[in-house]
């Protein structure tokens, strides 16, 4: 890990969905989480559904206000709600590329409107040129400009989702289960693109997934979230091979592996 101040500093974030009166029962969705990502690095955030990872992502992206805690980017605190300029600095790629894009808009309109609104291009033709550049960056091309989401495959849609996130030149990209809805062979190509972009654009990324093997592949560091808290953080191979927290151990054990034991293997044939 490089030294110096981390680009993104998330400090003591709490997200509590329970009504203010009578906060009983379990912990809040995000329970005093702090994490930081150095510039140009990718932090993987792993956990099961309901662990709070998407709530945390939405707060970091500025899509929701936290109950408590602060988010700093480049040392300065980001207000909630964010102003127009701050809003573009952290962008998100969503899980379901089918529903994250407006089905009525062509790819051209999705990208050029965004570029014009955020003054990333002067005029329509400059915006179209930039849209094509963005599409090429994510492995598509001008050919999909006039397609609507329905006419694209899942992998192509997710690439458009990435291009849209990159259009406003963010400093931090959050990928929330961005490849989990994709087929294996398509997923590999999108992962390659994400990693390649991270390196070329010196992007700082928060890669959120329930899949340990996928996260290990893309992340420089992995944090494991469980019941609203970060329970373990470390280098990917350390976390996967020598998990220290009990929860991480159970997660690793439950993940099906291609070289893992079949259930019909004698030592595995114990009752549920």
């Amino acid at each position: 890990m490089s030294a110096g101040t981390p680009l993104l500093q998330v400090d003591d974030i709490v997200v509590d969905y329970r009504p203010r009166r009578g906060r009983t029962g379990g912990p809040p969705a995000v329970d005093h989480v702090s994490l930081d990502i150095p510039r140009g690095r990718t932090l993987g955030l792993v956990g099961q559904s309901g662990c709070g990872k998407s709530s945390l992502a939405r707060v970091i992206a500025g899509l929701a206000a936290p109950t408590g805690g602060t988010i700093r980017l480049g040392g300065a605190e980001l207000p909630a709600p964010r102003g127009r300029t701050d809003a573009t600095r952290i962008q998100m790629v969503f899980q379901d590329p089918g529903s994250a894009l407006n089905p009525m808009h062509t790819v051209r309109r999705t990208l050029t409107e965004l570029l014009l609104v955020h003054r990333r291009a002067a005029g329509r033709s400059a915006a179209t040129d930039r849209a094509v550049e963005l599409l090429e960056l994510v492995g598509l091309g001008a050919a999909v400009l006039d397609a609507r989401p329905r006419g694209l495959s899942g992998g192509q849609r997710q690439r458009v989702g990435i291009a849209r996130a990159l259009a406003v030149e963010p400093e931090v990209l959050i990928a929330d289960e961005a490849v989990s809805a994709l087929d294996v062979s398509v997923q590999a190509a999108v992962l390659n693109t994400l990693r390649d972009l991270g390196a070329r654009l010196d992007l700082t990324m928060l890669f959120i997934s329930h899949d340990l093997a996928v996260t290990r592949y893309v992340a420089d560091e992995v944090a494991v979230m469980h019941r609203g808290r970060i329970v373990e953080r470390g280098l990917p191979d350390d976390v996967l091979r020598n998990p220290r927290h009990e929860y991480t151990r159970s997660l690793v054990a439950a993940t099906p592996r291609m070289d893992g034991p079949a259930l019909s293997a004698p030592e595995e044939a114990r009752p549920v």
Partner: protein
Amino acid sequence: MSPLLRITDLVLETGPAAAPVRPVSHVGFEVAHGEAFGLVGESGSGKSLTLRAVIGLLPEGVRQAGGTLELERDGAMRPYRFAEVRGRGIGMVFQEPMTALNPTMRVGDLVTAGPRARYGWSRRAARSRAVDLLAEVGMPDPKAQARMWPHQLSGGLRQRVMIAMALATEPSVLLCDEPTTALDVAVQDQILRLLHRIRTERGLSIVFVTHDLGVVRRLCDRVAVMYAGQVVETGRVEEVFTRPTHPYSAGLLRSMPTQDTPRDRPLAAIPGGQPGAGDRPEGCRFAPRCGHALPACAGLAHVLAAVPGSPSRSACIRVADLGGPPLDREALLSPLPGGTA
């Protein structure tokens, strides 16, 4: 092991009869008594439609245009009518435990609705049977849970209820359509263990449809890999997954990151995408994406042939050229001088 379920030359069509589109063409496989058989493929490969055709639950607009479906009864393989096997010889577990359970029925009533209708069980007999079944599928408090509504249960427990429903009519084959896809890995593992246990205890056969190779590896004995509506390779799981005999299976295996994938190299993605049912190429349907394709591949009739030196069957004509068995994944995917991209 003797066969229990045999599907031969299954053809499914949609669209106008004059110009039909075939999402599934000439798919066949055989499942033995007590065997867990995996049907694996990416979305659009036709795996779920194939499974639904086995029990005659095709979505509207899709029809069976050919093929025979046979089930072993009294020692002989016989073609069956769907009404004979639904909720009797063949049970089904669906993907979405959230939507596949009737929300207006209590769990206990759901579990025994099938046998009550079929065998005319009394309400009292059904109740006690429901509790037994819920216990068998590992519900922690079956008596209390029989009185609950589906929405009061977690996803994993709902999936257990669905399995209990399928078991209620004592099937000999359990069809499972991605039953763990919507679940967390820890819960998924519990459900896989449950399926393995009831299969062992009851001597049940399982046909398990999934896109997840790791799940097949964990549960199944044999596997058929589907691509663009056809089976491209079939064999024992440990063979197919360690020595694949089709470039598509090999590509799938390579593109999946594992805990040991080198992190300093790009993943081996398969270029392009699977063609839709309406625009599948002539000959080998994988050829346009295949690094080993020859001109001959474009005119190839689809045949699942035995592979010399391997127990698997493959639709690839280049298997023998690709180094000869035993084939390893690396050899199969490294480019050959004769291959065109």
